[in-house]
């Protein structure tokens, strides 16, 4: 569960979640679970003109399966460490 581990380090950071229905929500990551369900606080939809109904929404829970991408802040990701982690993961999967 590398990705889960990564998300754990990103709690309380601003992330942008792109959903499969093209809705992009920016908010503070509050929690993530093993299904990568995401809870965001203080959310803002990227294209407010198109989704005016989202203006009143302040926080949300996003089911992991509807997420297309998550844009994470670069400064909070240790790229090298992440590379290592993926290598580790790959090595472990091969072993199994």
């Amino acid at each position, binding site marked *: 569960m590398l990705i889960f581990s990564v998300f*754990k380090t990103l709690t309380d950071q601003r992330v942008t979640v792109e959903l499969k229905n093209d809705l992009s929500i920016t908010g503070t990551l509050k929690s993530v*679970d093993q299904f990568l369900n995401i809870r965001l606080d203080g959310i803002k939809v990227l294209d407010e003109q198109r989704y005016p109904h989202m203006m009143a929404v302040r926080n949300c829970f996003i089911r992991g399966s509807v997420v297309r991408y998550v844009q994470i802040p670069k400064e909070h990701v240790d790229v090298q*460490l992440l590379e*290592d982690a993926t*290598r*580790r993961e790959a*090595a472990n999967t*091969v072993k199994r």
Partner: protein
Amino acid sequence: MSFFGFEQNDLEREKQQFISGQVKEDGLAEYTWGEDSYDGLGDALQEGGDDLNDETFGGVGEVGKDFDFTRQVLSDNVPAELRRTTAVQQSNGFPQERSLSPPQKQAPSSYTSSSLQSLWDSKSPFSVLPRGFASTSRVDDHHVRAAASPDLLSHSQSAYPTFSPFADMAAPVTHSPALSQESIFPRASSQMEGRTLQEIEAEMRASAVRSREAPQLRQQQLLQAQARTPPPRLHPHAQSPRFHQLQQHILIQQQQQQKQQQQQLQDLQEQLRAEELERQLRAQQISQLQQQQLLLRRQSPSGPTLAEIQAAQHLAQLQQEQRRRQRSPAADQRYHVPQPLQESAQFLPQNIQMQQRLLAELAQAEFIREYGTPQTQEEQEALRAEAVRKIMEAERMEEKRRRKAAKIAHMSRYNDLMTQSDKDFITRIQVSQLVTQDPYLEDWYCQTWNQIIRAKQGLQPEEQRVLTFDSGVGVGLGIPGQRPSGRKLSAVQRMEAQVERIVNNARQREKEKGLQSLSSLQGALGKTAGRSYKAAPRQLLQVDSPRPAANGDHSEDEYKTDFEVHAAKEAAKLRKGVLGEMHDEHNFVRRDPLTHLEVLAIIEHLYDLVLQLGAIERYDLSEDVEGANERREQRKRLVDSLYEGLRANLPIETSNPHPFISLLGPMKGKVLFPRVAHVLEEDQLLIVLTLLITCLTQLDVVAGAHLLDSMEDTPERRDMERQTNAFQHYVLIVSVLHALQKVTLRELTGILRLLRDQGQIVTIARTKPGLDLLFLLLSRADLLIHTHTYDLGADSTPQLSMEDVEVWQSEFDLMFSALHPHLTELFPSERILRAQSGGSAQIPPEHMDTAAWQFLASVGAMASLPQQQMLVTALREKVLDLVIGVKKGWVADSEERDMKTKNVNTFLHALKLDSSQIAV
């Protein structure tokens, strides 16, 4: 509503009147049975099955009244058949009424009758009137009229007791429909007229005795009565024989209860009588007061006077008291036991209405009292406005509160739907998916990231945030961050408990599995479908790999075979050397340089090794820990294979570029280098370093350095710049500098000679990485010599022999003389300017030259006096150029200016000069 006391004709009322039979349409058939004008044709009808009609409809004799719930409280003597019809009662009028209560005479009989009608007409199965109209609304309407019109209200004095639910108790003869039908039962009416309380009580007592004496008889009587006279309300259903049976059954049961009830009722009755008398008195008082009030109001139309207020208060008090009394348990019981709820509801609207009116008046009165009697019209107005405002505010608040309450109620609908154990169960399911054999490994990124962050913040590295149990099973807990507190802490604790439980359960299951052979039960309940449960889609692209193993092993194997082949060749070469053959470069096993793919594969393999090493280093490698030896062995093995993987021990001529240099080519190779250098043994590192310097020209960043000598922004240049920066950072600063810390002067001399031997020192010095490397070497040598000179006593520094210094110096001189003719070429800006064709000259940014200035400064510091002079002479023009440019303000950008001054000073300071000494 009425205006000026005139009754308004409204449709609704007319409709009601019509419905209640007060207004008769011409076209409507009129049935008048039970009245005097009844023609008796119904009796003349010859029909079959009429034999028992009299019994059914109560035409014969005295019938038991056990089903007459309304009359239960009263004596048994009052026969149930009395209320056979209501039409009779209507036509007959109310003689007792007149005789008993004179004030009621004034009341128009239409009111009283309509109120009685409202009780009875729509309920009676015998009524011919259209049904389905709620009698309550009629009464309501009735009272709306009564309350609103002052003229009508005056009647309420008399009308009010009529509607009191107890009116028929205190004056039972007056309004009880059952008792008012004296035309049919003269005996009842005549008796009733003169009866006193004592008489009634006596009757009841007697009946109680009777019932006690002859229950059998009574029961028979009752059964008979039941058969003959079904209660009016039940009549429509009474045709079913089964229903009769049921009724009889109920009757028997009821009768048994009756004895009990009777006793109770007697007590109640006495209580009620006393209450009722009092109430009547009060009611009279109230109505008097009301009248008074109305009069007063007419007198003072501007607002209620003090007297009115007092009256209203008094009235309210009385009203409240009365209401309380009405609600007294005795009254309630009496009321609800014998009568259906609908009837009781009839009285409520009136009461509520009264109450509301009184309360409104009271509120007004209170308000006036609070603010004093208003003096002027304006004040009054102001007060009124204020009051309105306050009321509005209060209403708003109330609305707000109500909405909030509603919301809370709405949300709390599902409160406590799940018990704690349910929640725990779900948590367990969730957490169980996170439990792994090696929580640290699973959560590796998060754990390591935290360690790095903590290290950056200068905090003590915390113990791993993983929950582990003896077998190493556990869950990674994520960021330690702030200490959890309060709810969070308890949540964490709960989760810990949950995980422990999961783990223990799993272990238990394992044990159980161990006991009974697993295979014996497998498939006992049928086979499960293949992989339907797996979410992964079938792979469309299936590439046959030559080996089953994937990437990591792949490169390792390849590498091993490579290495074996190479070793054989090396051995062959050595044998040749032993045999006295000259070292022949051309005879040497030359190989093609590694392809890009090979390089990447090798790098990945090296990464795996590094990671394995990292995993081992997590454990304590000190002696006393169990398994430490094994781990050290393993570590040694890994380091060795890592070193071999770098291919640093291959002869320099193996290929061009050398395999090791190839590995430094891609970005990730450069990134990997410091990590490898960190774990390598010292001698291994020195070899690697030497190899790096020897083959420096083969490095991509050196070979391609000319790309940087241009101002054009091409992708290649950008890439080269990126690579150069990475090389400088990862290889030079992190690794080489680190490695040079342990290098002696003699070794430095050797390295410098290596560079010079290739005859390419000028080429190297014209590249940024080369300059940086030379700078590092010179400054290290400088440091070594100076610590030797000034800090002789220090034990830590190895003693430098004069010989070493001399060798170094001569080597330096050689390098200097080699570089001297090309000193200005060391500056990228100079190279760029020279390359550019005159006209459209762009001035390169100064930061490009920083490395050159730094190197020259280190050269200047190291150089002897004549060398320094040569240096100054060669660079005089360049220095003056910069200084004048800065001082005359030709350089617009202040940053650029500072940079130029700084660069010049770096160099001049090494010669113990300063740019300020230069006169312009």
